[in-house]
């Protein structure tokens, strides 16, 4: 399994703050994101600005994820 977490406007778009997806071996963040896009087509517009973190470390769409990982998707930050 792979845990996916969403924040801010992405959480609103998905309608959940986290979901679990099946994962039995290595895959890429991009592959996970593409599968999400088939369920949530509006994610398309996020692709150029999307930020990704694997297990609380900033990462990228090209990185690999493994079963048990936690993957966070969010828009550029606006704290402060």
């Amino acid at each position, binding site marked *: 399994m792979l845990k996916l*977490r969403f*924040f*801010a*406007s992405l*959480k*609103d778009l998905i309608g959940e703050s986290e979901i679990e997806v099946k994962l039995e071996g290595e895959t890429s963040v991009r592959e996970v994101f593409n599968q999400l896009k088939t369920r949530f087509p509006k994610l398309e517009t996020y692709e*150029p*600005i999307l*930020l990704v*973190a694997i297990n*609380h470390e*900033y990462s990228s769409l090209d990185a690999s994820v493994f079963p048990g990982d936690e993957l*966070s998707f*969010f*828009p*550029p*930050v*606006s*704290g*402060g």
Partner: protein
Amino acid sequence: MIDIVDSSIARKKVVESVAQASAGAIVTFDGTIRNQSRNKPVTHLYYEAHPEMALKELKTICDQAMHRWPLNDISIVHRVGRMEIGESSVFIAVSSAHRVDAFAACQFAIDTLKTTVPIWKKEHYEDGEVWIEGYKQ
């Protein structure tokens, strides 16, 4: 002191956390909720964080600041949840022997926080609300 809190930031305690007998300067940055944004009246704000990651990124900023400048100490506290006009969303305190270092480190801390720490604000207006998004670095 590094913290993410969901009620008023205890600014006095944050300042006290960096006070040291060998410090000659304490510079603080207090980010306060403005009553307008992009020329539109704001009624209140809501902040959300990725809590585990935000704490980690705040820690990284403090480590970097301590490494780059001869500081006595640096503390950062960010608040999340709903905030009213005039309330503090973030408070940073930096102490150093000499003031130039405290000023430089405090500016670095807030500038970096605004680009690396996973926290987002939603502006509420009379007629709606909008998630504010920064720029991808």
